[in-house]
């Protein structure tokens, strides 16, 4: 899995491309932690190219969400693909990690 980020006007976009599994989950957590430490506490994780997520990946997203909120911000997810959406729904975590259709819409109403 490859990670990248780009600081936008009011948030930082984190792209996570590949499989978000037990191998990559700790790396996502570390990557987002560094982005937050760099001064961005409003994070949008772009999951457009995340074809797969397991419960470890879900746990990492929750950890990142908590880290963003502890820094006074928030974390939102966008462009969720069908398998990721299924995992979110089956674990009822779609209520905690609200999925936005696009990165631009994630913080558009704040």
């Amino acid at each position, binding site marked *: 899995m490859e990670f990248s980020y780009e600081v936008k006007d009011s948030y930082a976009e984190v792209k996570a491309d590949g499989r978000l*599994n037990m191998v990559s989950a700790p790396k996502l957590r570390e990557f987002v932690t560094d982005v937050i430490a760099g001064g961005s506490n409003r994070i949008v994780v772009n999951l457009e190219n995340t074809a797969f997520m397991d*419960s*470890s990946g879900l746990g990492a997203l*929750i950890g990142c969400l908590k880290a963003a909120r502890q820094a006074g911000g928030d974390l939102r997810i966008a462009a969720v693909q069908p398998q990721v959406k299924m995992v979110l729904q089956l674990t009822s975590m779609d209520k905690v990690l609200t999925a936005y259709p696009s990165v631009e819409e994630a913080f558009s109403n704040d």
Partner: protein
Amino acid sequence: MTDVLASRSFRGLATEDAINDVHNDMDSLWLDVPFVNDMDQMTFTTAVIESASNIVQHAEPAAADPVELGVDITVEPLLLQARVSAYNAKPPFGPMEPATPGEDAESGRGLALIQALVTTVTFERQDGTSTWVLSRTSSQD
């Protein structure tokens, strides 16, 4: 008599690398059986990877030999089945019943997720090997 249309088998040390190897095996398996619909492919792959990850994360060796992961998958006309095994592992490892973690918990959802994804999950213990048998009745398009 069973009618196995396609299969894949993996066996190797229960390490992180094994998870991506098994995932690659499954991706190639679906190419052999394109009639298995996307939902069945997606759910079954997720269940198998969850089970294999559970072994890599939690299995402890019973003796000096390291734990090995085995994954044997078969596709029959109306049945997807995987035998996900931990060789050389202590019995049992990890919780056997699904947990109900709070919404801010970062772990503990794997077993419940597996049960939601497949039709049946059974556990076998024989000759030092723990095996989870995952079965999903293939849905018809």
